[in-house]
């Protein structure tokens, strides 16, 4: 009778680990891959140095007029001189501190909520949702002793961030309600949700913004004037919540029926089952889709340009028309693109982090 001796665990072959193993697996795994790797390497060597030269090495940083731009590279002086306008629009310079304070406070609150192991998260969340909007409104607009700054003076990155933040703040919960409505077995909520979603998804955002700024006032009573910014905000929020609803519906549909059955069998009510069992899982599944919609929303705020709101992109563009600074549109666009990219990429990175954090199954 033969006795079974367990085979010992051996280390993997040396060609499959380390730098060589990594390169073989990822860069040169097949002839085609090797050609693509070399091709990509060529493109990097060919184009990266000129870009770096233009943007950094040969660029002009010092000075305050266009005469300072003599080195042939990018003229960042243009952006430097215009920076406060790009950030704050036509907000009165002596009131900039209010904007900085409002965004700084929001940054602290969000960091508090996102960083793990900070105490009293639920209180901070309640404060952020219930109290902070009031503080922010007073700081941005005025009141309580602060001089009023009309919304037509708001602009630049500040306006972009306000549009995006408020849009996201409403689009997510509203999207959840619409998604639940569309999957409801009750005919009226379902019909309302379907009509709402299909209507808003069926029109371009530009149309929505146009109608909110041009057509809506025609139907409104003379004395009832709703601020243009508010109208744009409502338009963006409703538009994006229709997209959000469909993303979330995808997550709800991906969930096995057994989850809601188990929740029912345990005696949880519909809303308990939704908030404790179904939505946490459904939302986790569609984090990529939600963040995708958020990023889209962030960039779609540039469309408010057509109704005369001066967001970051439109204020940069309007600076091109300054006769003192003609011919620096490349620098302006690169700068605006970089700012948008930083915000969108941060959202993307955070979503990846969140996915990893919420992953509860086997890791591979």
């Amino acid at each position, binding site marked *: 009778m033969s006795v079974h001796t367990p085979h010992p665990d051996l280390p993997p072959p040396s060609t499959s680990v380390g730098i060589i193993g990594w390169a073989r697996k990822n860069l040169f795994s097949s002839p085609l891959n090797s050609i693509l790797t070399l091709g990509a390497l060529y493109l990097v060597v060919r184009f990266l140095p000129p870009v770096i030269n233009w943007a950094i090495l040969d660029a002009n940083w010092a000075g305050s007029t266009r005469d300072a731009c003599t080195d042939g590279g990018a003229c960042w002086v243009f952006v430097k001189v215009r920076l406060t306008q790009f950030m704050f629009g036509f907000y009165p310079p002596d009131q900039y501190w209010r904007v900085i304070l409002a965004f700084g406070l929001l940054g602290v609150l969000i960091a508090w909520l996102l960083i793990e192991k900070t105490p009293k998260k639920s209180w901070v969340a309640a404060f952020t949702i219930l109290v902070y909007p009031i503080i922010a409104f007073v700081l941005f607009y005025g009141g309580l002793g602060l001089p009023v700054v009309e919304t037509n003076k708001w602009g630049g990155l500040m306006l972009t961030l306000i549009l995006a933040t408020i849009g996201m703040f409403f689009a997510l919960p509203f999207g959840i309600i619409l998604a639940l409505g569309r999957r409801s077995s009750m005919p009226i909520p379902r019909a309302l949700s379907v009509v709402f979603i299909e209507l808003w998804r069926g029109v371009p955002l530009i149309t929505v913004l146009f109608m909110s700024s041009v057509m809506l006032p025609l139907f409104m009573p003379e004395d009832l004037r709703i601020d243009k910014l508010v109208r744009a905000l409502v338009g963006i929020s409703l538009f994006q919540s229709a997209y959000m609803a469909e993303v979330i519906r995808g997550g709800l549909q991906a969930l096995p029926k*057994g989850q809601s059955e188990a929740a029912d069998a345990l005696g949880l009510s519909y809303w308990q089952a939704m908030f*404790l*069992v179904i939505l946490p899982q459904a939302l986790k599944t569609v984090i990529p889709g939600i963040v995708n919609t958020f990023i889209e929303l962030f960039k779609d705020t540039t469309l408010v340009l057509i109704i005369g709101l001066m967001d970051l992109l439109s204020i940069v563009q309007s600076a091109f028309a300054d006769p003192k600074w003609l011919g620096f549109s490349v620098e302006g666009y690169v700068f605006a693109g970089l700012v948008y990219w930083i915000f969108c990429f941060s959202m993307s990175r955070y979503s990846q982090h969140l996915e990893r954090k919420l992953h509860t199954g086997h890791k591979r």
Partner: protein
Amino acid sequence: MTQAMTQPATAEQDLAIEVKGMHKWYGDFHVLKDINLNVKRRERIIICGPSGCGKSTLIRCLNRLEVHQRGEIWIDGIELNDDLKHIEKIRRDIGMVFQQFNLFPHLTVMENCCLAPIWVLKKPRREAEETAMHYLERVKIPDQADKYPGQLSGGQQQRVAIARSLCMNPNIMLFDEPTSALDPEMIKEVLDVMVDLANEGMTMLCVTHEMGFAKTVADRVIFMDSGEIIEENDPESFFSNPQSDRTKLFLSQIL
């Protein structure tokens, strides 16, 4: 409990479940036909039959995961109807274990067990956790309390699912093919837990193909086919002396 909600005058006090002339359709498909079933307290019933015979649908009707269209179902003296209050009461009273475990994958084992006690029974967290630990010890996996379901084996998950149901302190437990999704090595650990539960006097209805389990614990075996109860008997007579041809055929195929 008000008089209106207690059982009809004819029903016996010690009936846990009473099903009278119950029918169910899926669209045009008549899936349950004239089901009559009385389950006494502490009784252990095994329901078997070929797949698609309606046995799972039957027990899912008992806690309203499926809605019956005709006939009456009474659970512990409460009629199961459209009244949400009744459904709520009955669901608290009945624990259910599913073929696919249906643990909540985003919650740890401990959180799975505490969720319903905290939110439905309004128990303080500490107390709920103590109860949960007690039942996790009974199903012999207290050391896994902080893991997520995805990190456990199938048998362990099913035992957690049983513990989760027990945390609601139910009077009746329904098992819907609890071992069918498990590897053979893990079936025994789940059946052991169920045998313990049966020996402690839990009222149990169990849809299963584990005939060995049926022989050891069942007070009564019910055989179903095409939506009807064909035969019911104590396990010994059921297995040694089946009455109908359909039962004989079924037993000859599975034993």
